[in-house]
């Protein structure tokens, strides 16, 4: 388990992207995800791709690492590409081979849609690669703050999020530990018929649940013992601040949006 990498695991650093306020990053990603669907021409895609690659290089996260994070969705990208390639019947017939007919429209749309996918995943994985989970939850809490007016439990939600994020590595460690202990007792998780392998999960899941519940109880007790009280009147250890850098990035991003709408329908 220690050898596998979690998709978008935080890579510590001090790049421009790392230093941005998490709210800025989330806001920009939110709008980026929307405008990706407005791109419809070669140049508009070029503008977005430029922005995506620029953010990637600015983050100084090793490219090999970003690509590794994209690994699981390569299949999806290739699949959508092929789907469009074979099904779309617009434009000029390029190739005909028995029942397979490939048209220019298919090629163009295939590339466009896979590009969309690629950009979406690239930019969202950059968020988790350059922002600690705690910073993300803090930002979510701040962004959702206005919902408090309609009695939406924003703080509790953020707390739940940060607790569950906090315990993911712990649970993974625990899983690793218990699976090693059970493997030592002769459980085989890797080979054998499917039915046997499913049965092998029970000695892993039961102890995992037992310890997760125990941990939750202990955590609740410790929080109460230290006088935890959510929501109202609670101060923050890490105050989020919008800096000059954030403002520049907003301006840059607005330029990107303008650029996108100017280049729509061109080329």
């Amino acid at each position, binding site marked *: 388990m*220690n*050898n596998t*990498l979690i998709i978008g695991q935080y*890579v510590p650093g001090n790049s421009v992207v790392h230093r941005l306020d998490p709210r800025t990053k989330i806001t920009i990603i939110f709008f980026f995800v929307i405008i990706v669907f407005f791109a419809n021409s070669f140049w508009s895609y070029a503008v977005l791709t430029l922005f995506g690659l620029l953010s990637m290089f600015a983050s100084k996260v*090793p490219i090999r*690492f970003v690509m590794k994070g994209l690994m699981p969705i390569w299949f999806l990208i290739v699949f959508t590409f092929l789907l469009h390639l074979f099904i779309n019947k617009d434009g000029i017939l390029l190739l005909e081979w028995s029942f397979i007919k490939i048209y220019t429209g298919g090629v163009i749309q295939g590339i466009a849609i896979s590009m969309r996918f690629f950009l979406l995943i690239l930019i969202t994985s950059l968020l988790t690669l350059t922002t600690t989970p705690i910073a993300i939850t803090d930002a979510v809490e701040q962004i959702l703050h206005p919902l408090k007016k309609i009695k939406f439990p924003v703080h509790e939600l953020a707390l739940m999020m940060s607790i569950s994020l906090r315990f993911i590595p712990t649970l993974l460690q*625990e899983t690793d*530990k*218990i699976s*090693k*202990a*059970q*493997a*030592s*007792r*002769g*459980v*085989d998780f890797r080979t054998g018929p499917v039915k046997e392998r499913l049965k092998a999960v*029970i*000695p892993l899941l*039961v*102890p995992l649940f*037992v*310890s997760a519940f125990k941990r939750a109880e202990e955590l609740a007790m410790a929080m109460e013992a230290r006088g935890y009280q959510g929501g109202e009147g609670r101060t923050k250890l890490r105050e989020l601040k919008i800096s000059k850098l954030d403002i520049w990035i907003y301006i840059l991003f607005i330029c990107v949006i303008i650029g996108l709408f100017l280049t729509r329908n061109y080329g």
Partner: protein
Amino acid sequence: MDITFKDVSYIYQKNTPFAHQALDDISFSIPSGSFVAIIGHTGSGKSTLIQHLNGLAAPTEGEVMIGDFRITNKEKPKDMKKLRSQVGVVFQYPEHQLFEETIAKDIAFGPQNFGVADREIEKRIQEIIPMVGLSEDLLERSPFDLSGGQMRRVAIAGVLAVKPRILVLDEPTAGLDPRGQKEIMDMFYHLHQKENMTTVLVTHSMEDAVKYADHIIILNKGKKYMEGRPEEVFTQVEALNKVQLDTPEMIQFLDKFARKFKREIPFQKQTSDQLAKEIQQVLRGVESP
């Protein structure tokens, strides 16, 4: 079964920014039937090392031989199950591995996986239950009803029921009360002598190491720092202090004794009773009755 490590290194998450070298060029050999203590601070690589003993981890570089089983980066034994049936591992806090509905079923889980016949398992349970200090009327209860100490004993029984040739113990007494600690360690030592098992004990406790082990390996930051017989290793006070390890109480006592009475008593792994007699001899110059 002999255990041999040859230039073993192990790196976690190799080729990522999180790479971490846990073992660094470690070589040693443990002859069959010995009782070895592996000592080191947290993060010194002890737990990683014992995962090499039953093929849970394969060395990044170097070679591990367990009896006839050879484990390298490229080569894993074909019959991993057989290796694991011969190397029993009691992990830290082994009570976390309990999962069955009844204690009897949980103890039987290991032997069943290794294909031991039901009647033989039954026989072994009857043998082991008194040995680990549990009573037989607990057998049909749920392991989750027990106290922490009792759960630990059930988990240990589950490993012993496989009847391994090598027993690996990773801080088996951590978190137990002093009496429970002594009971469990004495039980392991008794088993070691009776069954001529090779025993590998990972511990923080110098006292346990000096009391039970006949061979000591000290790890520091993934490297082998010292190795040898207890009387060789523990008398090198300065070298031990350099890596923030204490010497056993008896050595400290002998040191103070030598300074106060200007008489040296050599450390030879005496028990405290033997030492008391020696002191009597040295101070009064008489043979004790």
